[in-house]
């Protein structure tokens, strides 16, 4: 890559990239934000930050990432000159009020998702939905991918599901179109990545963990679950055990309180 001479003294590299990706929005500089804030009351800024919170929550109900372009266009609008400050306050609300973390998952296209900072508990989910079969299905797939070292050809997933009487070729009573759920819904929600394997004929795909799974799902818990399933000490899977207990991306706090 050539050294493009577009960095002005006030801009950091990531800011200069914005101009390429999103012509309607340029990340304001610190001094621009400062000047913008001087002209506005705290209440005005808080109000706009609250609208951002509402907007992201609404999008998050469907677990769809929020694009910065949309955020600016629909909510931030004329406050775009103080965008970083608005996002800072929104992130603080998510953290302090909702126990959620606002994460930019794609720094190139500027997409945000909310990640749960609270550990998943069975009881709370049984109140919210008596059984959460989709979550169980997802957990099975994530387990297989993790145990196979992080990447798995799709056939292996379909065969595993068939053993559980979930046939991707048939309409399932609970899941409907299984293939669509797994390769579309879970992918859009960033729980899974479904990518084409290069140079395959016929075309083949493979699964990886998605960014939301990385942040929300505890590998240690998956290993624990596999241990119970196979009546085996989780430590016997040396490689996975090491990964589960060292990986910085396993955002979950200690799971010792869980049975």
């Amino acid at each position, binding site marked *: 890559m050539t050294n493009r001479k577009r960095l002005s003294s006030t801009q950091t590299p990531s800011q200069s990239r914005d101009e390429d990706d999103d012509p309607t929005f340029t990340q304001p500089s610190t001094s621009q934000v400062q000047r913008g804030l001087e002209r506005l009351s705290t209440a005005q800024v808080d109000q706009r930050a609250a609208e951002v919170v509402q907007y992201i929550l609404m999008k998050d*109900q*469907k677990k769809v990432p929020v694009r910065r372009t949309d955020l600016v266009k629909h909510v931030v609008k004329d406050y775009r000159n103080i965008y970083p400050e608005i996002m800072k306050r929104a992130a603080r609300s998510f953290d302090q009020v909702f126990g959620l973390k606002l994460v930019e998952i794609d720094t190139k296209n500027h997409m945000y998702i909310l990640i749960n900072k609270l550990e998943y508990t069975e009881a709370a989910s049984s*109140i919210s939905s008596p059984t959460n079969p989709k979550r169980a299905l997802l957990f099975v797939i994530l387990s297989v991918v993790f145990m196979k070292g992080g990447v798995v050809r799709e056939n292996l997933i379909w065969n595993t599901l068939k053993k559980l009487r979930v046939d991707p070729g048939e309409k399932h009573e609970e899941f409907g179109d299984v293939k669509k759920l797994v390769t579309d819904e879970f992918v859009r929600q960033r729980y899974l990545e479904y990518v084409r394997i290069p140079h395959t004929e016929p075309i083949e795909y493979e699964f990886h963990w998605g960014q939301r799974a990385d942040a929300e799902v505890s590998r240690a818990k998956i290993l624990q679950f596999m241990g119970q399933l196979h009546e085996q000490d989780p430590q016997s899977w040396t490689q996975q055990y090491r990964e589960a207990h060292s990986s910085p991306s396993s955002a979950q706090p200690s799971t010792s309180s869980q049975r």
Partner: protein
Amino acid sequence: MTSVQLAVASGQSGQMSRQMGDNHRRFLQTMMSIGIVDDHGAKALYQHCCETHNVQCPPDRLDDFIETINSKLQPLFMQIRKGMSEDNGQEHYALVNMAQTDVTRMSSDYADNELELFKKTLELIVGSENGTVSSTDILNSTDSMTTKKLKKSETEHLLSRLVHDKWLNETKGEYTLSTRCIIEMEPYIRTMYQDQVSVCHICHTIVFQCQICENPICGIKIHNPCVARYFKGRAEPRCPACNDFWPHEIPEIRRPRSQSRR
């Protein structure tokens, strides 16, 4: 210590008790995913959230607990609001969005013409005497739609979605507003249909499904569960407003938990 310092100190301690913990956050998260919960469910959830995070939960402090959450939600134009089920009188808690209390808050889930039909349904229910509308009347109202007209099958599908999403209730082809819908949309309904909206004579909240005094110059409305409670054990029921004989059958007080939650 000066009085100013004292005031500051007491103000801070007041603030301390209003701090949210992970137990509050978990409760709120669950409310976000379910939208509404009855009081038994709320108590169970409260207990679960406190136990999960090793916090004491005195059983009688649920409302304080929710008040703490509300104090932080208010600047974000949200609130957990309490309301009564018109079917069985049971208290419910719903998470409401105060920034958009009208039907636009449903716009992420429903198309424009679907929202129009929901508005029409709302209108029919508000305009009806006892808060119900038949599926036939809803189907007929599609004729006057200004957005893309919904076909019969589409309307039926939409109605079942509205029931599934807990905006409407349905029994034998008759539709009523769900508890969630009433709690969330009460301010909207009150402003939109000022002249048509009535308030229960007993509990003073907005009323749809009810019994009505037959004295034409009185005509007060009372929720069915409020009727049951108010007239319980009275030999000759009389209207609490005009003292005329109350001619309707007095419903039994329903024990909410004895009926299964299917």
